[in-house]
C-alpha cells in the first residue's frame, strides 16, 4: 500500500527542507508554476476526486473553482489547522513531521486560485506544530519557495501563521475567518459563502491541512493515479486516527473506502485483550456512533453517509463492552455544551440542556420521561442553527440514545449503571 501523507513520518529531521527536497520536494509546485495554468491545476484536482479531509468531504477542485476570478479583490487561502474534533490527531502529525508538504500544497493551491497570501490557522495548543511551520516557512523563504517571484516565476506568495486561542468552534470555517479577523469566533450566516465573501470580505478558500498536503503528489503523479488509490468519487488516502479500546491505537494512512472492520481488527490490532467491540465512532465525536454490528462499512464519505453517520475528520473512537454508553453520551454532550459558541438559541441553550439531562440520567437521577424526551430535544437543535455544530449535537448524542436506549432506560429505572446489561447487549 502506497503511503503519501505519512511517507516521511517517523524519520529523523523529516520536518527539514533538505530532507523534503531529497524526495522530490517542491517538484509538484515547480511543475504547477512552470508548466501548468491555474485552470489546469484546478482541473487536475477535480479529476483526482480529492475531497475535503477536514470533515465535510466537499470536492476540493470544485471548491477552488468557486473563486470568482473576475473579482478585483485579493483572494486568500486559509488553512484550517484548528484540529479540535475529539478523536482526531492527524493534522498535528503532518504539521510536526512534514510541514513542507503543507507549504508546497499551499503554493500550488494559491497558484490555482490566484492568491498571494495564505493564512495557516493553527490550534493554540499545538505549540510544536506552530514552531515547525514557522521553521519550515523560514527555510522555504531562504530557498526562494516563498516570497517574491517564487522559483523564478512571477508568482508571489506570503504565508502567515495564526495561533488559535482554544475554541472548538473556530474550526468551523466561517468562525475561523471571524477569529482571524480579530473578532469573536462566531460562525457566519451563509450565503454568502467564503468563496465569494470570505476573509476581510474577499474571496477565500478554506482547506484542511491534510487536504492541501495531498495536492503536490497529485500534481506530480497525476489525477488518475490519485483517484485510483481511493474508491468511487473518494480519491486517494486519508489518515485515520484510531483511539480507544484497540491494541494499537494510532494513525493509519489508508485508502478511502477501506472497511471499518479491517481498520479496527487488522491495522489497529483488534480490541484489547479479552474484550469485545461494543461501539465505534467513525469520524470524530460529531459523527453518529455505530454499533458492533454496523462496522462492515466502507470508510469513505458516501458510504458512511448512507448508513447515517459520517466520515468526518477520520477520528475512529473504539469502545469495548466495558463502556457505559450513557457515560459516553454524557462525555460527548459535555463537550458540545462546553464548546457551543452561544450565538444561536437552539444550540446555546439546547446543548447545555441535553448535557444536564444525560448527566442526570447517568447519575441515576433521571425521570421516566427523560429518555423519551431526549431524542426530541436533541432533534430540535440540528438543522435549526447557523452552523453544523447543532447538527453534530443531534447526530452524536441522538445516536447514543437511539442505539443504546435500553441502557438509558436502565439508568433511569435502576438508578445506576449496569455493565452486566452492557455485556448482554453486546453479545446479542
Amino acid at each position, binding site marked *: 500500500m502506497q503511503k503519501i501523507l505519512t511517507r516521511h513520518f517517523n524519520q529523523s529531521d523529516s520536518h527539514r527542507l533538505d530532507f523534503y527536497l531529497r524526495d522530490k520536494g517542491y517538484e509538484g509546485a515547480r511543475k504547477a508554476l512552470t508548466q501548468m495554468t491555474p485552470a489546469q491545476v484546478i482541473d487536475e484536482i477535480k479529476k483526482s476526486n480529492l475531497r475535503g479531509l477536514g470533515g465535510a468531504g466537499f470536492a476540493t477542485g470544485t471548491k477552488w473553482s468557486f473563486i470568482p476570478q473576475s473579482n478585483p479583490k485579493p483572494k486568500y487561502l486559509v488553512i484550517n489547522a484548528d484540529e479540535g474534533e475529539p478523536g482526531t490527531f492527524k493534522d498535528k502529525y503532518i504539521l510536526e513531521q512534514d510541514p513542507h508538504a503543507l507549504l508546497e500544497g499551499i503554493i500550488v493551491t494559491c497558484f490555482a486560485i490566484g492568491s498571494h497570501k495564505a493564512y495557516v490557522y493553527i490550534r493554540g495548543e499545538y505549540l510544536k506544530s506552530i514552531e515547525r511551520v514557522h521553521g519550515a516557512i523560514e527555510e522555504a523563504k531562504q530557498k526562494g519557495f516563498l516570497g517574491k517571484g517564487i522559483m523564478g516565476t512571477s508568482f508571489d506568495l506570503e504565508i502567515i501563521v495564526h495561533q488559535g486561542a482554544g475554541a472548538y468552534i473556530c474550526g468551523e470555517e466561517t468562525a475561523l475567518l471571524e477569529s482571524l479577523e480579530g473578532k469573536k469566533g462566531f460562525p457566519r450566516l451563509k450565503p454568502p459563502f467564503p468563496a465569494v465573501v470570505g476573509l476581510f470580505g474577499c474571496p477565500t478558500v478554506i482547506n484542511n491541512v491534510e487536504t492541501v498536503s495531498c495536492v503536490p503528489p497529485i500534481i506530480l503523479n497525476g489525477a488518475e493515479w490519485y483517484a485510483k488509490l481511493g474508491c468511487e468519487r473518494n480519491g486517494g488516502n486519508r489518515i485515520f486516527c484510531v483511539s480507544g479500546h484497540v491494541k494499537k491505537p494510532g494513525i493509519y494512512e489508508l485508502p478511502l473506502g477501506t472497511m471499518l472492520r479491517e481498520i479496527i481488527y487488522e491495522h489497529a490490532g483488534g480490541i484489547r485483550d479479552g474484550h469485545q467491540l461494543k461501539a465505534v465512532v467513525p469520524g470524530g465525536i460529531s459523527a453518529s456512533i455505530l454499533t458492533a454490528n454496523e462496522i462492515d462499512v466502507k470508510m469513505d464519505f458516501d458510504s458512511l453517509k448512507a448508513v447515517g453517520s459520517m466520515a468526518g475528520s477520520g477520528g475512529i473512537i473504539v469502545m469495548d463492552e466495558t463502556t457505559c454508553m450513557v457515560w459516553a453520551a454524557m462525555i460527548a454532550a459535555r463537550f458540545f455544551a462546553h464548546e457551543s*459558541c452561544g450565538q444561536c*438559541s437552539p444550540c446555546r*441553550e439546547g446543548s*447545555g440542556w441535553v448535557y*444536564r439531562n444525560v448527566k442526570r440520567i447517568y447519575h441515576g437521577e433521571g425521570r421516566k*420521561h427523560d429518555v423519551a424526551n431526549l431524542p426530541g430535544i436533541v432533534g430540535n437543535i440540528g438543522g435549526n442553527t447557523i452552523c453544523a455544530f447543532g447538527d453534530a449535537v443531534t447526530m452524536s448524542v441522538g445516536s447514543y440514545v437511539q442505539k443504546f436506549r435500553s441502557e438509558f432506560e436502565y439508568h433511569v429505572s435502576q438508578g445506576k449503571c449496569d455493565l452486566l446489561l452492557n455485556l448482554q447487549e453486546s453479545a446479542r
Partner: protein
Amino acid sequence: MPKLTIDGKEIEVPAGTTVIQAAEKLGINIPWYCYHPALPVAGNCRICMVEIEKQPKLQIACYTPVANGMVVKTNSPKTLEARKSVLEFLLVNHPVDCPVCDQAGECKLQDYYMEHGQYNSRLVDVKIKKHKKAFSIGPTVMLDQERCILCTRCVRFSDKITKTNEFGVFNRGDHSELDLVPGKQLDNKYSGNVVDICPVGALTDKDFRFKCRVWYLGQTKSVCPGCSMGCNIEIHWDKSRPRTQKVERAMRLKPRLNPEVNQYWICDEGRYNYHFIDDHRVLYAQRKDELMALDKAIDLIAQTIQPLKDSGKSDRIGVIASAQLTNEDLFIIRKFFKDTLKVSQIDYRVPQPTGDSDDFLIKADKNPNTAGAQTIIQPNGTDSQSIIQKAKQGELDVLYVFGHDLVKLFGKETVEQISTKVKLFVWQGSNINETGSYAHVVLPAAVYAEKDGTFTNCQQRVQRIWPAFLPLGEAKADWEIVALLSEKLGNPFSYRGADAIFKDIAQSVGAFSEMTYEKIVDQGMVLKK
C-alpha cells in the same frame, strides 16, 4: 421583480427583499426576536424560521432573500414545531420572573409563548446562574442578564446606530452574558432606545420601572416638542388613575416610526422630557396671587384692550408668541392680534442660547414649531427684543406673552420694570415660571399632550399631534383662550376645533395649501415652497 407565494398568497416584491419583509407586506406576521429592520441581520434567535418548498431545512425569514417562484409556509406543522422548540430553548435558562418583570405585557417571549408555545414544561434542571440581575448600566437603563435572550439587538444598536459600542456578549455557550464592555457605561444621548428594542425584560428603563403595568397604559400618537426635529412619539398614559393633578398621568414616551424623520428612535432628552405634562402646571387664571375664573380674567383683559381697539392705538400693544405653540394656536393669534387688532409689534422669536445638537436627531433649535411660526406669524421689522424695550420704557399699554420665561431671557430687573410700566402684562402658559409672578394676569394654557393640532419641523414637515388627556384645571389650548378674548371684544370665531382652524390655514396660508388632517395623518406633509 420576483413573485413569490406566502401561505397561498401571491406577492411581487423588489429583488433583495427578505421573506420576513415580503410577509409583512401581506400582513403575515412572522415572529422575531433578533430581527430589526434598522439593524444588520444577526439571524441568531431562529424563531423566524419558515418552511420554503424545495429547501430541505427551515430557513430564517429575516435573512433569506425572496426568489421568483418561491413558496413559503409560515404556518406549516414543521414551521410551528420549530417555533415552539425555539421558545422552549429560550426558556431553558430564563428565570420566568414575569410577575416582577417590567416588560410583562409587552414581552415578545410572553406573547409568542401564548401564541405558539403553551407546552408542558420539560425543564427540571437547575438554570445557569448569570451574574447581573437588576444591575445599573448607566444613568437610564437597568440590565438583567438572566432575562436576556442574547438577540444582540442592543449590541448592534450601539455598534451601528450610535457607534458608541457599549455592549458585548461575553463568555460562550449557555454561559453567554450580555454586558457592558469593560470600562464603559451606557451613557449616550440615545441610550433609552435599547429598552425599546429589547424584546424581553433584560433592559428596562429606570424612569419607568415599577411605575405602571403596561396593560394599564393608553397610547396617544404625538410629536416630541423637545426640538425642531419633531420626532414622532407615542405618549403612554395611565388609564387606571383619575385625571387629576394629584398624580402623574403621562407615564413614558416611546418613539413612533417615521422613516422620514426619526426612523425608530428618539433621543433621551426627548424621551424623558414629559414630567412637565403633569408637574408645576398653571391650572387656573390668576391676578397677582389671586386665583380667578378664566372668563373673569378674560373680562379683565378685554376691558384694557377695548379702548385701545376702539381708538385704533394698536401700537400700544406688544405680543410675544412662541414657536412652542401649534400652527393652529399661532394662526388664531395672528388672526386676532394682527388681523383684527392690527397689532404690528408681534414676534415669536426670543434670544435663546444655542442648544445641544448632533448630526442625527438632536437639533439646536429647541422649539417644535419654528418653521410653522415663521410661516404663519411672519414678523415684520419688530422683534421681541424691541417689544421688550418698548414695554420697559412705558411705550406699551399691553404686553401679551405666550409661555416664555422672560426672567430667564431678559433678566429679573427688566421684567420688574415691565410689570410697573405697562398697564396690562398678560402671561399665558402651561407651566409655572418666574415671569408669571410678575404678570398682572396669568392665563392657564394646555400642554401639547392636551392639544389637537400640528407642528412644523425643521424639514418643513407638518406633523399632527393628538390630545392624550383633557387639560388640567381650567387650562385651555392657547387658541381657545385667544378666541374667548376675541369673542369678548366683539369678534367671535366660528372654529369648533383645531381641524376647522387647519382647514382655514390651508386656505389662507399658501405653504399649507391642499393639506388636511386626513392627508398628513401619521407621517406628515412638507410645506410648499
